[in-house]
């Protein structure tokens, strides 16, 4: 069972159709069981009982999650694989010592995968869909998987299977979600 965490401004919002449902559908089509839960309702127990966690993105104007980073402290405990998408990546960065920084981008753009990883595969150019006003700095010790130090596109925790990606994999890159399930 994958725990899919909804980071949108409120539970069962209009945004969930755009940022949560497509990820849930892609994971389900890849064979995973999925439980969706709003970030205000995730407990350490619910996170530890699943096989993996995916933190979803949000609308451009929706940054409420960044004011409640403490609600994600359960991600700091060693446990299951986790993937943070866009807003989810920002949460991960904040929890592990990075910063959320202004970095607006909208649309399909070239992304340089710079380090081989189980999630993104070997170094190469890919195209990804960006929809964000903010990016992140690389948390201390994290590996840069894609982008540059100034414009981080993807990272991973040095020891644990915690990944963040700034682009939205539900658009033309569902293979990222399939690879996450294989971690």
């Amino acid at each position: 069972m994958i725990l899919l965490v909804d980071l949108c401004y409120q539970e069962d919002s209009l945004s969930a159709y755009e940022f949560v449902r497509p990820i849930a559908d892609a994971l389900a089509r890849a064979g995973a069981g999925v439980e969706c839960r709003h970030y205000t309702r995730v407990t350490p127990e619910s996170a530890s009982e699943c096989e993996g966690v995916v933190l979803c993105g949000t609308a451009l104007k929706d940054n409420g999650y960044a004011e409640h980073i403490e609600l994600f402290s359960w991600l700091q405990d060693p446990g299951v694989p986790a993937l943070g998408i866009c807003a989810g990546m920002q949460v991960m960065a904040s929890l592990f010592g990075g910063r959320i920084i202004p970095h607006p981008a909208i649309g399909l753009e070239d992304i340089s995968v710079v380090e081989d990883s189980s999630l993104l595969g070997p170094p190469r150019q890919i195209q990804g869909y960006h929809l964000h006003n903010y990016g992140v700095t690389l948390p201390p010790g994290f590996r840069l998987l894609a982008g540059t130090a100034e414009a981080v596109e993807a990272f991973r925790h040095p020891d644990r299977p915690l990944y963040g990606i700034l682009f939205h994999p539900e658009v033309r890159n569902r293979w990222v979600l399939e690879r996450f399930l294989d971690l």
Partner: protein
Amino acid sequence: MNLGVLFSGGKDSVFACSRAMEKNTVSCLITLVSENPDSYMFHTPNVRRTDLQARAMNLPLLTWPTRGEKEEELADLRAAIRAAREKCGLQGIVTGAIESVYQAARVQRICRDLDLWCFNPLWQINQLDYLRLLLARGFLVIISGVFAYPFDASWLGAALDRDRIEMLAALQRRYQINPSGEGGELETFVLDGPCFTRRIKIIEASSSYRNYRGHYLIEEARLVDK
């Protein structure tokens, strides 16, 4: 949150509007009326009939003219959204985009520049599942235009029923078309749905068809009780 819906009268904008009405307040529908039948952004067949749909849904309709030329129509869209924001106190915009990054990214940029929320409640939805959902929810959708091989004239004016959806599924398997028509293969018009207080009855219509391109134009229609 007060929302305006970019509204063409086709199934995607009507269903997006329906979802927005379930979660928020839809304050107006925004229709760009293009002079260009091959508009990049804006659905054109029967777009002048959106006034009937707006009345059926008890929502104000704001129309905005555009010549429908590629980059100019973006400026027109921005102007229309800005005017709607001022007139209706909008906080956000809703679109019926499904997979078109071209459309979605442009509206997202306009909304960012105008400090508006942007919602795409059909984004990345499985297209065949979506067509079946429309039917299950009681939307009455007709095909108002076809623009690609192998669609023949029999599609024009046809209701999107179970048989047509299965035909679209077969065409998707064989020709890789977008079954919802977002690739420009076909266009639709909604006559009824759960968010309609009355349904639209077509009194007179005409069809034109040539070389896998055709239109079904509603010449006269009126609202009737459901």
